[in-house]
């Protein structure tokens, strides 16, 4: 991106400096009007592309069979500084999986998009997208349910945002990836 801002250091203000200031304003005016070289964009027709680490609306990731990767460990709800994640847990029919969320709500009005939940998750079950368009008519609509969070990525086609662990979406999750990479234990040491 080219720079629109130039820093001009002025020691002593004289009459010429006023004109110089005016020139900056005018040149930008001409550039925008006649050369169509604008700083602003026409939202919502146009949208900006955000960085790969943008922290937008959460996505709950899924296993290949469509069940959530989340194991309802509550670590995200524990770390969440806004206390906006509400989870209820239930039994998974497969007793090697054992625990699964029956309810997973995020109150987007309270969320501060810090991404701590993503950092805390041991299963890469919650990641962030680049979705930022969150205006709703009622407060209730801003509470995103498990359904919405699970199907967010497919439906709206938003790109993935912040997800510090490696591995593509739908892959083996952090644990599987660690195993693939030959990491078998924790790397923590006193």
């Amino acid at each position: 991106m080219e720079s629109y801002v130039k820093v001009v250091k002025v020691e002593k203000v004289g009459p010429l400096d006023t004109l110089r200031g005016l020139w900056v304003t005018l040149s930008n005016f001409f550039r925008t009007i006649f050369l169509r070289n604008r700083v602003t964009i026409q939202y919502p027709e146009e949208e900006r592309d955000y960085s790969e680490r943008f922290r937008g609306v959460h996505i709950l990731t899924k296993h290949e069979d469509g069940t959530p990767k989340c194991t309802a460990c509550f670590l995200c709800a524990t770390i969440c500084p806004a206390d906006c994640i509400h989870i209820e847990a239930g039994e998974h029919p497969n007793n090697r999986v054992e625990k699964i969320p029956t309810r997973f709500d995020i109150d987007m009005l309270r969320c501060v998009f810090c991404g701590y939940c993503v950092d805390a998750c041991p299963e890469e079950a919650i990641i962030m997208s680049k979705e930022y368009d969150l205006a709703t008519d009622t407060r209730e609509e801003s509470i995103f349910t498990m359904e919405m969070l699970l199907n967010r990525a497919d439906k709206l086609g938003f790109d993935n945002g912040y997800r510090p662990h490696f591995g593509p979406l739908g892959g083996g999750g952090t644990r599987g990836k660690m195993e693939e990479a030959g990491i078998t234990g924790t790397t923590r040491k006193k």
Partner: protein
Amino acid sequence: MKTYMVKITIDGKELEVPEGTVIIQAALENDIHIPHYCYHPDLSIDGNCRMCLVEVEGMPKLPIACATPVADGMVVHTKNENVTKAQESVMEFLLINHPIDCPICDQAGECGLQDYYMNHGLHNSRIGLREKVLKRKVIDLGEMIVLDTERCILCSRCIRFFDEVTHTGELQFYKRGDRTEIGTYKDQPIDNSYSGNVVDICPVGALTSKDFRFKQRVWFLKGTKSVCPTCSTGCNIRIDHTKGVVFRLVPRRNPEVNKSWMCDKGRMAYPLINGENRLKYPMIRNGENLEPSPWEEALDRVVKELKKIKEESGPEAIAGIASPQGTNEDLFLFKKWIREGIGTSLMDFRVNDEDKKVREMEDSILRRKDENPNTRGALALDLVPKNGGLDTKGILTAVKEGKIKGLYLQRPIDHFPDKTLLKEALEKAEFVVMHATHNGEGMRAAHVVLPSCTYAEKDGTFTNYEDRVQQIHRAFPPIGESRPDWEIFRDLLVHFGVSLSFPTAQDVFLQLSKEERAFQGMTLKGIGDLGRRISS
């Protein structure tokens, strides 16, 4: 028999302990923590987990602290390099086949393996995820327990509990070596009335509570010290709650009362506190129905009606029946209210022979037949009729005959054995006031019902079967507009023109310890966490 005291040194601290004590007990009682899994102060010694290794000067190898009795002049080190190394190895050994279940394990947050791994382990695992021995998971063991054999560290605490405390012996180890599994014969359900305790003593997440399963992570819970109100034994408990909802009750160790145990009935009584049908507002009768009303209106009504009866027929036309469900503070102010407010001595608290049952055991472990926490307190406070006065039956008969017109009940008395007399009396009574914690059938005869909060929502003291006064604490504010009984009596007394000032339950206890002979000289500080007995 005389016990000799023995002098030992643990980590440079000189201690004097009775002969025969084991090292770990001496250390734990003196705030030196030695990590351990299989040792439990209320069970026999097994010495199988090897976590409590310590160094004793002069001994060639590290002995286990739970099975080594103290000897005079013994010098013990619990934190030097040899010990630390040994503990690290034991931790690694225990974790060889342990599944990485923490995210889905209910024990996480209060797990011995997690805590000791952080304090004494921190090793890198040398076992691949696929190399672990897999065992059976999520085994349903009846009403109370879910078993996960994979998480078990084979400490045998649960086996010893069922062998030594309940003598039912349901659990056993099966198979050998690293295939050893804990379980019941053919996965038969465990069916005894103390089974919930093994969930508490299991140091890991192998035995978890079916009721508490997945409901809440333990680190969200706040613990409040209290006393179980389900029978007159008065087991010490901790109420685990968050945001005004109770999630579980667990026993609190008191060697003199309940050791480390409580019965399943008491443990499972907590839903009553959260209950949907808690009475939240004062209710006033309007024709057939009871209708919610503000406190002031309800109290005014009570005062007006009782004053009217008192003026027309004298104070002897009003009687009060207290409840041993109330704390000593509640009962003390109940007595004051009946005596000094209304001005009668017509009162009793016995509805169904509580005073006779209070010391009778229901089983051979903890439970007693009297289902009230404070029957002995009511007796100590003298809430019984004297020399030929009317008892509950007499009072109800007098109500039926029209001699007594007003009735003040601290709780519904549906459990009165003579149902016909009760029905006739309540129908005949001119004015019945009642405190209640829950909406229920018992309220139908009342003219005014005042919402009273449960033991979890108030401070106070209970006196158990052996006259031990024990403290309960308020876990969270009362639900709805309910109030503790003592507060209601205090406000009524003020309405009746008696001047007193009791801002808190502690102030009531202070006054009680001054006025009541049985409680003379007691202080809440003296009662502490473990209670104090009334000296007879």
